């Protein structure tokens, strides 16, 4: 086993565990906000359909949250398991940030999650709604802290070197480092979009089968309305993220756009397919849309941008990975945008719930948010290579002194156990979806907290908020 490289194994293990983790926070952050909105609507209108939507998604949320928690606990040890040297250098900077995340977010989520999941018959509806809001707030705060930690690694600020150690000189600059304020909204929007396409996709599936029509129409209407606003914001914010990158991590964007030459031809095409040759510092093959590169990236017809050769070879990331992760996110973002525009048009013509080709597209798009999120993170993380902290520490110097064989065997263990998590999550979620939302459990009716249920005059005749009824 002497030819196994601990560096590669440590990176694989970190990348695998964090990629797996982020899938579930993305879903939880989005669904938590969705649940809070639906519960607010239920409390406000008393319409039982909202309650049914809440109940249905709460179950899926609980599973996703559970996996998010247990894989997150792994992450707080992963800095030591795989990158102990990084932990020793950067612990004084990112440790308190993630510590604050635990104090202000993890405890908040955990404290109110029990009430949200199990407390409906024990606390009044207002307090229950409050608990839902606290969980949603917790996931948002959590995102803010962890993005501060990660953004500091991308664009470090507020620290000074002192005898080979990092000393924080200004905490506010550590947190509000140059990329945090654009990456945080980008990530939050990504999570909300993920939930919007998830709930819309499932509703579309019901509508295609002619099942649960009332439930599905209402959910689809909410989901697509949210998606329209969110994707417009996301394209705008994403563009800002790119502009920030040009300033602070130019190599990443150079790799993401696929050019090698110090300056690109004028006008610059926008590349969609490349076969890069990293050793030769050139593309073997490239294909793109003429003019579009100049227009998108320089806002002019003939502008040019710089290619990866502007960055010394020993500081370049692997172009092929960065390029394609970026293109996956971008392509999905544009698809979402197109779908949002079409949904407005269909809604206008009253065909949002009946255009079968559109519903089928939505079913296919159900996991699109997760895929785009992973693409974005791969771009961000692989584009930072060969550094783990931009300009300060190389990944190769960060690895734990753990034998390769140990790293390999635990990597296999992680893959096996996480496969169980993922398999069970998919099976149970699909089973819940197939079973469909259930009505109100009969024993719930007489309880005090549900007294609205006993007032059919509210429950039955609420006009639907939108749609074609």
């Amino acid at each position, binding site marked *: 086993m002497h030819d196994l490289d601990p560096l590669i194994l440590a990176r694989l293990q970190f990348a695998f565990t964090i990629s797996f983790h982020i899938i579930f926070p993305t879903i939880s952050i989005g669904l938590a906000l969705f649940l809070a909105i639906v519960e607010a609507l239920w409390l406000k209108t008393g319409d039982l359909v909202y309650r049914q939507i809440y109940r249905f998604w709460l179950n899926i949320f*609980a*599973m996703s949250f*559970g996996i998010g*928690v*247990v894989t*997150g*606990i*792994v992450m*707080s040890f992963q*800095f*030591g*398991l795989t990158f*102990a*040297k990084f*932990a*020793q250098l*950067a*612990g*004084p*900077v*990112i*440790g*308190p940030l*993630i*510590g604050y995340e*635990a*104090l*202000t977010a*993890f*405890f*908040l*989520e*955990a*404290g*109110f999650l*029990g*009430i949200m*999941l*199990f*407390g409906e*018959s*024990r*606390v009044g509806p207002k307090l229950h709604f409050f608990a839902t809001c606290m969980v949603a707030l917790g996931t948002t705060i959590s995102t803010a802290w962890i993005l501060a930690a990660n953004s500091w690694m991308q664009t470090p600020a507020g620290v000074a070197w002192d005898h080979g150690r990092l*000393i*924080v*000189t200004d*905490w506010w600059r550590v947190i509000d480092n140059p990329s945090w304020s654009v990456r945080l909204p980008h990530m939050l929007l990504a999570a909300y979009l993920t939930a919007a396409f998830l709930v819309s996709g499932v509703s579309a599936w019901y509508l295609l089968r002619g099942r649960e029509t009332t439930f599905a129409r209402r959910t689809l209407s909410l989901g697509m309305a949210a998606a329209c606003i969110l994707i417009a914001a996301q394209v705008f914010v994403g563009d800002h993220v790119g502009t920030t990158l040009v300033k602070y991590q130019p190599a990443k964007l150079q790799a993401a756009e696929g050019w090698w030459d110090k300056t690109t031809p004028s006008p610059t095409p926008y590349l969609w397919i490349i076969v890069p040759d990293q050793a030769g510092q050139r593309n073997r093959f490239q294909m793109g849309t003429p003019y579009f590169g100049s227009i998108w990236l320089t806002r002019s017809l003939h502008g040019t941008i710089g290619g990866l050769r502007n960055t010394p070879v020993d500081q370049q990331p692997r172009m092929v990975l960065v390029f394609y992760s970026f293109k996956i996110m971008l392509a999905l973002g544009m698809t979402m945008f197109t779908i949002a525009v079409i949904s407005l048009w269909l809604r206008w013509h009253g065909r949002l719930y009946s255009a079968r080709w559109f519903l089928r597209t939505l079913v296919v798009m159900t996991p699109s948010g997760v895929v785009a999120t992973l693409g974005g993170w791969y771009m961000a993380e692989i584009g930072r290579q060969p550094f783990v902290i931009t300009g300060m520490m190389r990944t190769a110097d960060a690895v734990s*002194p753990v*034998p390769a064989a*140990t790293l390999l065997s*635990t990597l296999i*263990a*992680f893959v096996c*156990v996480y496969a169980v*998590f993922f398999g*069970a999550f998919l099976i*149970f979620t699909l*089973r819940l979806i197939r079973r469909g939302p259930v009505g109100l*459990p009969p*024993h719930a009716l007489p309880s005090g907290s549900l007294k609205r249920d006993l007032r059919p005059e509210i429950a039955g005749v609420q006009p639907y908020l939108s749609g074609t009824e």
Partner: protein
Amino acid sequence: MDLPLLSALFLMFALTMYVMLDGFDLGVGVLLLPQRDQQVRNRMVDAIAPTWDGNETWLIMAALTLLAGFPLAYGILVPAFYIPVVLMLLSLGLRGVSFEFRHNSATSRRRWDFVFAGGSLIAAWAQGLVVGGLIQGVDTDLDSFGGSPLDAFSPFCLLAGVTVVAGYATLGVGWLRLKGEDATRAFARRHQRWLPLAFLGMTIITGAIAISIQPNLAVSWRDHRIALSCCLIAFAACGLGIAWLAGRDDVDDRIGFGLALAMMLSGVVALGLSFFPYVIPFRITLWQAASAASTQEFLLIGALVVTPVVLAYSAFAYKVFRGRTPAEGWY
């Protein structure tokens, strides 16, 4: 002000909260193994379902305090206990997801219960391996771990693992007796008679071996002899007290659980005192491993301001689910 000492106290606080709170969760999980009745098992899991997540968060808090306050120690200890830590994380993970998955599957619930119990058992045992490994000593090489990942699997560590399982099970029966009705409570009472005695006995054996394999422990015990004696007397008295009260029906069920918490607390305090002032026992002190003052200050301000709020709403969450677990679950 001695900032590293304050950070170390906060670290100890988080660890103690973890051991006491997740300790009873894990104990209840382990106790699913001898329980055959599916109904009772459902009640047992219901008794911890609404609050386990918050309990486990104290482990994260402890790990992050170590990372922020004592990065040198974090970077040595986590690789030193690489295999026990991964074992613990994977077991905690399997156990955590079983909460949701068993709830959603009527047909395969038995299988998930087994995963749940096995996960609890291995997680508790792996934590014991770490305790044993700390006592026997961690090899360091400048500021890295210098030993082998298998060091934590010595016979002594294996034994320490069993001791921790017994301790958590003692907490677990206390909680079940408090939260359970009828069959669950009777089951808890039955095991409450012998588990605290087993924990007490195992601790004495482990301690005796510890002092023979780790000479520094004797020095440390001599230095803190008064405080340590108090802890040990409290520890033994609580253990005997629980076992004695277990048989009587006229005492409040809260007393048994309270005594189990006190027993665990005195055990943890004794362990902490034995190691003081080292973070990596008998090699690297708190002050040698501490991060710079700017980090310690920032962390401590957060800890001091936010922890009371956390404790308040965590207590509120417990209050919402006070009383015995309803027979039909929490829904």
